[in-house]
């Protein structure tokens, strides 16, 4: 892993700076538009002054936490997807498609049904545990064959495990009359995020992203092949376990905060690799920024398409994601 030549490094710096600028722009736009359109100077004053009026209150109390949540979750899911794709060398890996979100969903249903006194922090922890179980289930099934599974087969196993876990969550939700609580939690999406929730989620995601960056170098080796990683002196089992923990942390808290968001973790790392190459020390930060931007965009669309009502953000992401999915499935998942 020699540092790349100077021109490429400079190019990476520019790409990164441009992406950050786009993200900042999208952030301001997302604060301005919604059920109530708010002029730019009010947005400015809400962010940088102590003045108070109705518009400023809308921004400070409703939009700002919501858009920060969108950025944090977008970054977390994109990074989680990137790590999974690198680790499993599977271009189709995505937390939403490999049973992680479904597992978190089921854990929430169980939590509401049997331990209603858990509170916000407890539910977040429960969601992460569920995410871990869902992922272990799918990867365990995948590892049950000695020759390992092809990308396509793993995704299919993931989608049927997800099918099953969702059905189970729904059955529990209806049988114990908690489906309303669960769907308030998950289908509500980014809507109604509070500062208090952000206080739990932001540090966790930040820690996860930092941990991911610490392992980015090993991840790059691992993404080439198991042999390369071993040859470079890597203890692959240890690194894989650490990376899996990071994925579970990132995806788990994301689902606990906003519910199911498939396709972000699938799409964004591909975009990032197209922009900055295949070194994960670059792919991961790029993916985080692009993921944040994408979710900001999707959330703004969700609030403006059917105003004053909201379209579920996950649905928008799914519609945006499908052409991408088809393209990758056709091109990359060819071997079976």
């Amino acid at each position, binding site marked *: 892993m020699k540092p790349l030549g100077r021109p490429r490094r400079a190019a990476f710096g520019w790409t990164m700076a441009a992406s950050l600028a786009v993200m900042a722009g999208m952030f301001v736009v997302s604060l301005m538009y919604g059920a109530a359109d708010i002029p730019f100077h009010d947005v400015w004053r809400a962010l940088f002054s102590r003045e108070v009026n109705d518009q400023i209150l809308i921004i400070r109390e409703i939009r700002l936490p919501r858009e920060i949540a969108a950025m944090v979750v977008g970054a977390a899911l994109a990074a989680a997807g990137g790590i999974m794709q690198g680790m499993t060398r599977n271009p189709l890996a995505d937390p939403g498609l490999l049973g992680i979100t479904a597992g978190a969903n089921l854990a929430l249903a169980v939590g509401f049904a049997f331990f209603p006194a858990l509170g916000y922090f407890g539910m977040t922890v429960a969601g992460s545990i569920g995410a871990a179980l869902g992922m272990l289930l799918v990867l365990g099934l995948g590892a049950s064959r000695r020759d390992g599974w092809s990308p396509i087969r793993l995704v299919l196993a993931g989608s049927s495990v997800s099918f099953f876990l969702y059905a189970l969550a729904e059955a529990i939700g209806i049988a114990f009359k908690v489906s309303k609580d669960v769907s308030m939690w998950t289908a509500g999406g980014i809507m109604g995020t509070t500062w208090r929730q952000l206080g739990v989620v932001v540090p966790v995601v930040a820690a996860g992203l930092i941990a991911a960056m610490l392992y980015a170098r090993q991840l790059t080796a691992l993404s080439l092949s198991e042999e390369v990683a071993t040859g470079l002196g890597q203890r692959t089992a240890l690194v894989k376990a650490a990376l899996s923990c990071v994925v579970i942390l990132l995806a788990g808290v994301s689902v606990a905060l906003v519910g199911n968001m498939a396709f972000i973790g699938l799409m964004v790392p591909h975009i990032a690799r197209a922009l900055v190459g295949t070194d994960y020390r670059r792919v991961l930060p790029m993916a985080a920024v692009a993921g944040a931007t994408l979710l900001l965009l999707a959330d703004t669309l969700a609030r403006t398409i059917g105003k004053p*009502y909201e379209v579920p953000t996950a649905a928008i*992401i799914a519609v945006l994601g*499908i052409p991408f999915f088809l393209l990758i499935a056709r091109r990359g998942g060819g071997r079976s």
Partner: protein
Amino acid sequence: MIAKDLVRKQRRWLIGLLGLIAVTAVVSMGLGYASLSFDRLIPTLLGQGTFKEEFVLLKIRLPRIAITLLAGMALALSGAILQGITRNELADPGIIGINSGAGVAVTLYYIFFPIDAGVFIYLVPVVAFIGALAAAILIWLAAYRRGSGLHPLRLVLIGAGSSIALSGLMIVLISSVDRFKVDFIAKWLAGSIWGADWPFVLALLPWLVALVPFVLLRAHRLNLLELGEPEAIGLGVPLTRERVWLLLAAVALAAAAVSVTGGIAFVGLMAPHIAKRLVGPRHQLSIPIALLIGGWLLLVADTIGRNAAEPEGIAAGTMAALIGAPYFLYLLMRK
């Protein structure tokens, strides 16, 4: 020639399954939110029940049982055809995205026309057919590759992805138009039998009456198609034409079923498999068995779901996924 004892075995299974369905139907008639005791079933059917008993049995339970049986049969047949023509044991109208295509069309229709038990009901399966056909063509084109043909796993993968995205599209469409119709779509996606009324039975029945004999007549060619392309061509099957006809039939059956029941997956996967386990791979023998198993499976799923939680119950599609998803995994692991 089909061996005599095989035919006899199939007859025995047919009779056994019919008996099983009859028993399940009777149990299903007696269970539900409103009480109707078993010893009142026969008098009520003969017209000697109280007004309440007649209402519960004739207007609520019986049409629902009829709908679930017919829809289960249609899904099973559709699955059997799809598995045959794609030579893919994982094919199912729900899994490969045909159901979601029908769902998007029904959503559009629902946005522009109110759905009530009037004339429009008979148009719903037609609308669903158009949507399902569009989705089927799209998925087929995306999965087909010149040279290597239709790769089974790729087909399932692309179908599964499309079905997630099309469900998303349904939600976007409906919630951008009418907040209060979102509930309907949510129910549709979960596969809860929403059209449980006699007009819906009449809307579904003609499709089965027309298409079951059509497919049974083609059972022999379906056998040949399942052998493989070179073999089928060698034995004189007009490949493309047969495939197109059979695909149209499969799409029509799935569309008709899901237009009144909502998106139900896995029934079309399980029923043909179990049938082949019981009577062997010949479609002449396995299709009638698959039909009955499909109807029975959905009836059982709905009866359990209906009674598992009061008052609204667990959707039949959810119950079907609880049973069917592990079965799908088992098939995936075995290969």
